């Protein structure tokens, strides 16, 4: 098995090198709208001849976009970016004179001179959005997990048809959770379990812990490590304690599963079995003895070893005090 894996990895590496050595050229596709778009970041001849026509002209055909006036972009831009409403459409879509001149004729190449983000690759959508939105939470977007898995800004945000109650995020779904569940559907089920964090109660959201726009932490966590993330709310467990429990200092996920569990306190499995995964100690019920035992009911092992996250008591070596 080991050899097979290494063999597969080697083949993949060679394949990658070959792909590069072919001298890949960007594909120009009028349908994609990437190569003939008119945004400042693209360099296409057609763009040079297109001119700004103003939002009123756009709305004359795209009447369903008239509500963009109420959009947070249209409201904020005049003061924040010096872009008044008349320029708002073409700020993202590029100058529209040629597109408008085509009068809806898709047989006319000019029709495709408008930039349609829906047909752009995720990389080019990000490039467009980051023209204004770089920095802040997007500081580590480039090369982050979502960027490198081909997730587009438009996978989560809908500029014209935002459904979220919180209008400033312009989400594609009614809530932040529903937006994330589009791809992370199993998390939806996990948060329904008997032991869960209060996401469905509306007191936490996915972005309470994660930054979907990229981070330096694992699994897009906002902090640099799992423990830093957990301890930012559970500060009482930071210590340092006189007597530390090694797996606690190492990683909260050694014992807890944050997205939902069948077991109380978001534990990975039920006590005493959880503790017995790492402890086979004498003078304790190392067998699956009857559950009526006093050492198994209630909080089980932590009924006696109650300070399992660490003890600052001089005689707390066994986390009992």
């Amino acid at each position, binding site marked *: 098995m080991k050899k097979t894996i290494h063999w597969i990895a080697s083949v993949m590496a060679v394949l990658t090198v070959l792909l590069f050595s072919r001298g890949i050229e960007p594909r120009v596709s009028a349908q994609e709208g990437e190569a003939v778009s008119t945004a400042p970041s693209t360099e296409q001849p057609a763009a040079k001849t297109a001119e700004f026509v103003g939002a009123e002209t756009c709305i004359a055909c795209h009447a369903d976009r008239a509500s963009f006036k109420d959009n947070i972009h249209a409201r904020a831009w005049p003061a924040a970016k010096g872009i008044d409403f008349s320029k708002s459409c073409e700020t993202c879509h590029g100058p529209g004179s040629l597109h408008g001149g085509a009068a809806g004729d898709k047989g006319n190449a000019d029709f495709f001179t408008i930039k349609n983000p829906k047909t752009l690759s995720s*990389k080019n959508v990000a490039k467009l959005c980051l023209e204004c939105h770089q920095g802040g939470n997007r500081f580590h977007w480039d090369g982050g997990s979502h960027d490198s898995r081909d997730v587009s800004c438009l996978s989560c945000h809908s500029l014209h048809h935002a459904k979220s109650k919180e209008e400033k995020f312009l989400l594609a779904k009614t809530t932040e959770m529903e937006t994330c569940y589009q791809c992370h559907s199993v998390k939806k089920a996990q948060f329904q379990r008997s032991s869960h964090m209060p996401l469905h109660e509306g007191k936490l959201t996915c972005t309470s812990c994660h930054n979907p726009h990229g981070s*330096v932490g694992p699994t897009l966590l906002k902090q640099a490590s799992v423990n830093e993330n957990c301890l930012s709310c559970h500060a009482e467990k930071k*210590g340092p304690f006189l007597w530390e429990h090694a797996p606690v200092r190492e990683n909260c996920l*050694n014992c807890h599963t944050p997205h939902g569990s069948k077991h109380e306190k978001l534990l990975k499995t*039920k006590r005493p079995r959880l503790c017995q995964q790492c402890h086979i100690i004498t003078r304790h019920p190392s067998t699956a003895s009857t559950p009526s035992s006093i050492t198994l009911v209630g909080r089980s092992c932590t009924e006696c070893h109650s300070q399992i996250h660490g003890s600052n008591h001089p005689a707390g070596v066994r986390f*009992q005090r």
Partner: protein
Amino acid sequence: MRLQKIIPATLAALILAPAVWASDPSVSLDFGGQAVRGDVASSKFDEYIDIPRGFYVESLGLRNYGDDYYFRLDGAKPGFKDQSLNIETGIWGLHKFSLGYDQTPHNLSNSARTFLRNDGEGVFTLPDNLQSSLQTSTTNAAGFFPWAPGIPLRVDRTKSSLAYTYSPTGPWRVNLGYSAEKKDGQKNIGVNFGFQIAEAPEPVDYLTQDLNFGTEYVGKTLGWRANYNFSAFANGIHSLTVDNPVNLTDTAASASGSSTPGTARLALPPNNHSHQFSTDFSAKTTAKSHLNANASFTSLRQNDPFLPPTSNAVILSKARVAGFVPQSSLDGMVNTLNAALRWNWKPVTPVSVNVRAKHYDIDNRTPELTLERIPYDSSYSTGTPTKSFKYGNVRRSLPYSYDKTNAGADCYYSIAKPLSMKLAYDWERIGYDFFEAKATQEDIYAVSFKAGPFYDLVVRPSYQYARRIVKDYNEELHWAEESFPLGEGTALGEMPQLRKFDLAGRKRHKVTVRADWDPLDYLNAGVDYGLTKDDYDAEYGVQDGRTLYYSVDASVSPSDRLGIYADYSWEQMSAFTRSRYRSSTADDLVANDWAGVLKDTAHSVDVGVQSVLLKDKLDADLGWGMTYLKGLQQASNPGTITTASALATDFPNTYSRLQKLRASMRYRWSQSLTARLGYEYQRYTETDWSQDDLEVYQKDWATSVFLGAAQTGYEAHLISLGLSYAF
């Protein structure tokens, strides 16, 4: 705490006034009444929310977007225990001021009962006559403990926050923030008096304050930001002292060195504070490449005074115990350094390459202390005092540390319009201090694809293989300092062949597939599949772990007046362990091994219909959701056991089931007024041997007393009627 509410409110009022009245505001208000019927005594019913009974305001909003100023206010359930208020205001693109106030209850149990009386400062006492009576005889205890008064076990969280952002120029931004989080309440905790347990309510009086400020510059080619954060945690109660229910005072020392204590005392979480400095840097290294870097340094300190080593005055008076603690407080310090670098190169449109490296170092500089050992408040050693290291006499505290280094690269390649591929390799090394292993090292290979859209189908499969090896494992390295060391007295300690799963060699296979199908504007469906299989290189401990899940979801809207959705998810988490029955004598035999199977299975279903009965007038929703969980914990002896005590048996299965049926109708009277009628049925059932039969007092355990805290099932009907008004 009061000051923390007044200051933000005053600041907010001063800053908000011009923004609120800058132009015509829009206001929304959602209010109504709700009735609750059924068996809702369980804390599970309102675990994290305050469920209204009678009149309540569901939400309120105020918007005012002027040409320069803007103002936004969102409030929810004012006056309830889960109320919240968020205000954001400022001048577009220049000033942003936000204020947040949020309460979250956490209802732990409604069934707890105790005779313990809270005397303040973490001291809980019992009536002397009760202790004396039980000290004499516990015969009648089962009769009167059920009559103990009930106490709520809940912890309520209140968080206030203030933030201000100033953007003097386009690329520059300065921010300042402060938050205070208060946690109040009590939760159950186990207290032991030697080999005797009593549960008590642990008072929670936490305050965590965070202050941060930073600046950011993000230009066309360069970006930089720096932040400072100060965090302080303060616990209002530093210790918990609880009366022994079956012993009034510390008994005189016996010849063998035992004394039954009248109280037990625990140290509660100590105060701590930390400083964190962090900086981020980004640069377009070329027109097609981008470099991101981050560095942060955190220093965490803790120096709360130590408690005396025991609350038992008889033991404390012994000469050997005097001078037990070498210093009055820990002077603990943990420094954490994080440095990360990522280079992203997009040489041509279809290709993206990432190269990354990260170093994360937890340097625990807390002093190692060697302390005389007092295992229980009920006994002390009668041996000759000694400073030489003997398992039975002393323990040394260990400042666990580790450093983790990661390096890796991935390449994304859009092979053709409907097909892209990503290859990744990562390497991780963790170096440990004071753990049984010196280091672990892992190689992780991954490949993922995105195929589509073709025929309106997008498929995203991925596969990951990881192999972890362990370096310099020495099970005896720190046994002397461990909680249960080998050779403690005449008994055995930890089992030498055991491998803790985080320090064991491991092979991991992980497969995920996500497929989305959108054949029509009104129809979409998705399928998820995932399998993670871990194979541990361990003779004892966790041998294998497996997580398998799949889910299907679909939604269809055959007309703009009807929408139907359904999703189902199944997940199973399994672990296979091997252990051994080991008595306190030396019968450490393979024959007494036992194998354990842990398996949790979860089914979740959610289906519903959304319909418009009268266009722009009347719509209705109907939905049903169910989550069913089953826990299985089995054990068996592979061989022929040598003693009946080694017999491995299964624990009873545990179950829980939550069902919710929701129905609602909304009638729009006018553009600004909508009426709603809602009904919800909830039913939760739970079967769990560890709490089902647990009472405050059990005859079989004559000297132990519990709180009887449980989260049992419930059944509820909620009927609500409300109005939404917007103007």
